[in-house]
């Protein structure tokens, strides 16, 4: 019991901090709300998909930006656009914000700027991934201990 409560408290605190720091936004909360008995692992599933997708897109962007002959900014832009879409869908606010900046560099066809953004995106993505993994671990622990995931408002 204590363990469960403790874990739950940890969970709540951690969630709150993630929100506070801008890693997650309201959309993530919505996702959590969608999780129910019918889809108990919904949030984890979506997050996993997001990570996969994110990696793929980042690789695409890196490849496109590395082209010495000429960067295909359209392609980069398309990737960024998609990343923006998925990050906003999952609630990855910081990632999304970087994407917005990234897009304007793409439009300006600014390779340097794009590369910088790419770096930032990669960084944010890694951070988020770690944090979410921690959060999910906590969730698992709570469930394992017989508790239920508290809803964080």
């Amino acid at each position, binding site marked *: 019991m204590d363990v469960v409560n403790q874990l739950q408290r940890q969970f709540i605190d951690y969630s709150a901090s993630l929100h506070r720091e801008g890693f997650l936004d309201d959309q993530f909360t919505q996702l959590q709300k969608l999780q129910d008995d019918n889809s108990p692992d919904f949030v984890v599933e979506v997050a996993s*998909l997001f990570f996969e997708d994110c990696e793929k897109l980042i690789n695409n962007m890196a490849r496109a930006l590395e082209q010495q002959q000429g960067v295909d900014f359209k392609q980069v832009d398309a990737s960024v656009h*998609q990343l923006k879409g998925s990050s906003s869908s999952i609630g990855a606010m910081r990632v999304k914000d970087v994407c917005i900046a990234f897009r304007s560099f793409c439009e300006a066809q600014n390779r340097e700027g794009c590369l910088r953004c790419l770096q930032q995106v990669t960084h944010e993505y890694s951070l988020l991934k770690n944090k979410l993994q921690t959060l999910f671990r906590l969730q698992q622990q709570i469930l394992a201990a017989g508790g239920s995931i508290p809803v964080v408002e």
Partner: protein
Amino acid sequence: MRVERVISDENDSFPVGMRVLAVDDDPTCLLLLETLLTKCKYNVTTTSQAITALKMLRENKNKFDLVISDVHMPDMDGFKLLELVGLEMDLPVIMLSANGDTKLVMKGITHGACDYLLKPVRIEELQNIWQHVIRRKKFDRKDRNGSGSQDKPYIDSSEAAGLGNVDQNGKFNKKRKDQNEDEDEERDENGHDNEDLSTQKKPRVVWSVELHRKFVAAVNQLGIEKAVPKKILELMDVENLTRENVASHLQKFRLYLKRISCVANQQANMAAALGSVDSTHLRMGTMNGLGNFHTLAGTDQIHNAAFRSFQHSGVLRRLNTPSGVGISGLPSSGLVQLSPVQNLGNTSTNQSKLQSFVIPGNHNANILQGMPMSLEFDQLQNNRAASHVGQFPSVDNTTVLPVSSISASLIDAGCSSSPLLGVTSNSLLLEGSSQLPTLHARNLRDSVSGFPNRSTLSDFTSIAPASNQLHGSKADIQDQASPISCNAGKIISSAPQDWNAPKKDAPYQSNVPSCSINSLRAVNGDMAWLGQCLDQNNPIFNRNVGFDFVDPLSIKFSEGENLAMEPSVIEKEGYLMVQPSRQGSYIPDNEDENFAMEPSVIEKEGYLIVQPRRQGSYIPGNLGSLEDLASAITKQDHDKGKPTDGDFGYNDYSLRTCI
């Protein structure tokens, strides 16, 4: 909003179970969307590829109620998918994008999206999407019903109003507009109570290229005259296709053919027609006669000769009498060839008679026969406003011609399908108003292309009688013209099967007057007037009654090229006609059985024939030589043809004198 039992599989629980197809290449978003939609209790199917989505939709048009699609997709642009879905399946589509740029949103809406959502999409937004389905269904329903049973053009917002609480939104209109080419045919919806949602389940039939090909093959196999919806349906052997669907499609097809054949037949027919015009009757029974007219159209000489052959007086007289009118199918077919008629304009007296003969370019040849074309013919020849079919007025010599010449000119005009044109021209001739010619030309052309002029012929015949009456009175002509057009329209639109029977009394006769002139004019697209004609049982026709309509069906239109054209034409252009500018004449309530089809004609925007104004311009592609003719006719005709104020505008025509 009053939510009635709608479409969904679970009858009374809509929107629960509404079937949504979600398309997004981003797996994260797709999963999210799926979950959200499921949460809203919809029945969700997902795919990450637009091509797959299209395939699924095409497999079974009835499978989904709504589509949600991302804008940026690698295999196909979301807007393209949107358009295709809208055209082919007529389903509501919601766009989804992370980019909320106004320009993009505008693009989405202009491409026909019902809504444009921004990512991340929220559940609240998705909870309301079922409204789009209801709206569309209701509008469609209204649309169909309206066209069938009401006068209101389907776009009419009044219909929407009828929908009760459903918001009339511009989307409906847009949908219709966007779907000009869409050949949804839910004729069987006609008369169906809008409120009866059970019918909403009926899928709208979309005439895809393959389906249409099958249809054409079936029609060819049966022979255009014998092509009745029931048999066509059997031959086609397509599931979920009803006789009504086929019937309405056939109607349109006939118009198309008429239009095409009109042009083709004009020349050939004119000559023959003129020669064969039999004063005794207008029995247009044989299109061939009319066909001749078509050919006549081109040549003055021919006309003269042909007309002369008519027993002028006798013919004329006959023309006046309904029997003489034989124009029966005139309108549609070759009548367009009236180019000689153009000259006719003057054959006021005789011509008027001729007018009755609807020179259905192709088919109407027969009709013309009855017409006292001889008289007018001469005139027609002289006047020949070549380009414009309607120009009967100028016909000096060919007074008699009215009929023949008219037809000739009409035919020349391009057989444009609108048999009505023929009629109108006739009537015009009668009055001497050149307006007819123009109309005719156009109509004929249109009608010709549209239908197997047969039907129009009947119209014409009916018109012919009317024309008799018109004698001397422009109004009459116009009326006749209208009826003719109406009739023609009717004939055409009405169940094809009925074409065989000269509908003399039917639609056209009674009320035609109203219909048509405007309708004729408008009919450029054939259809337009058809619809109109249909509505109005041309009273005029009644008068003349006598004529036998050449059963449009019997009139063989030059199938060859017509058919060839059809897929493309029918599918998109053919039906494209814009709404007939029913200037008042359109009488939606189909008094006549023929009208039944009307709505469909009008409805499908595509069909509505364009305003007849285009004298001679309608001829669809394959006109070939006819084009020359037509263009020639048109040129002259053009100006005259302009109907003014809603009537045939015959005022301009010199036809006044005629008939």
